């Protein structure tokens, strides 16, 4: 089973608490979300694999057997057009779980009137494929969030 790790430090909330129905209703996929600590931080890779997409505000890592994990740094943060985000890697690169990918500051995102919630989503997966989903309590960066069969 693939272990998907927290990309940021904070408090696990589950997807239902994310203030965006597309994530909250699991339309993007099942998973969980983190309410991140409000301080400058480096978001990391939740799994080992290839960086399929690296936007300043979101990224997708795919494992060698094709499991894709989306990490979205805040809600509607695409509107920031990268301001306040610094990418630390390149699309197409192979990374280990925990590799630094984006510098950002959830406090600044919140100050701008947006939710800094970080959905971590298993793409093309059914909810039944996930196990031991963490949806409450404090999590450190790199702590396990869910297993993926």
């Amino acid at each position, binding site marked *: 089973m693939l272990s998907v790790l927290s990309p940021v430090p904070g408090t696990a909330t589950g997807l239902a608490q994310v203030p965006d129905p597309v*994530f909250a209703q699991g339309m*993007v996929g099942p998973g969980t979300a983190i309410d991140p600590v409000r301080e400058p931080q480096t978001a990391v890779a939740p799994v080992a694999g290839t960086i*399929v997409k690296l*936007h300043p505000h979101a990224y*997708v890592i795919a494992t060698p057997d094709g499991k*894709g994990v989306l990490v979205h740094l805040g809600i509607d943060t*695409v509107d920031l057009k990268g301001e306040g985000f610094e990418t630390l890697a390149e699309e197409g690169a192979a990374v280990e779980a925990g590799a630094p990918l984006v510098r950002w500051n959830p406090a600044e995102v919140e100050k701008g009137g947006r939710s800094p919630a970080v959905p971590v989503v298993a*793409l*093309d997966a059914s909810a039944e494929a996930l196990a031991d989903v963490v949806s409450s309590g404090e999590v450190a960066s790199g702590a396990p969030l869910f297993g993926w069969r």
Partner: protein
Amino acid sequence: MAERRVKVESEVGLHARPAALFVEAAAKAAGEATVAKGDGAPVSAKSILAVMGLDVRNGDEIVVRVEGDGAEEVLDRLAEIAGAG
């Protein structure tokens, strides 16, 4: 098989939100559904990983192909999602 070329007006391209809506609509196709960027290689329109990996940006032209009963209706919906600003 039904095919349509659509200019993507979604500001973020086919990223998280529009990609999720697009894949949800494509999943309703009775047969295969694919999407390609311009004349590039088609990928499954039913896979959000494949669609997000296609890196479709605002202003790109995509070619959507759908097979099976009701293909035109599915295409209408896909074109509507991709064409929404």
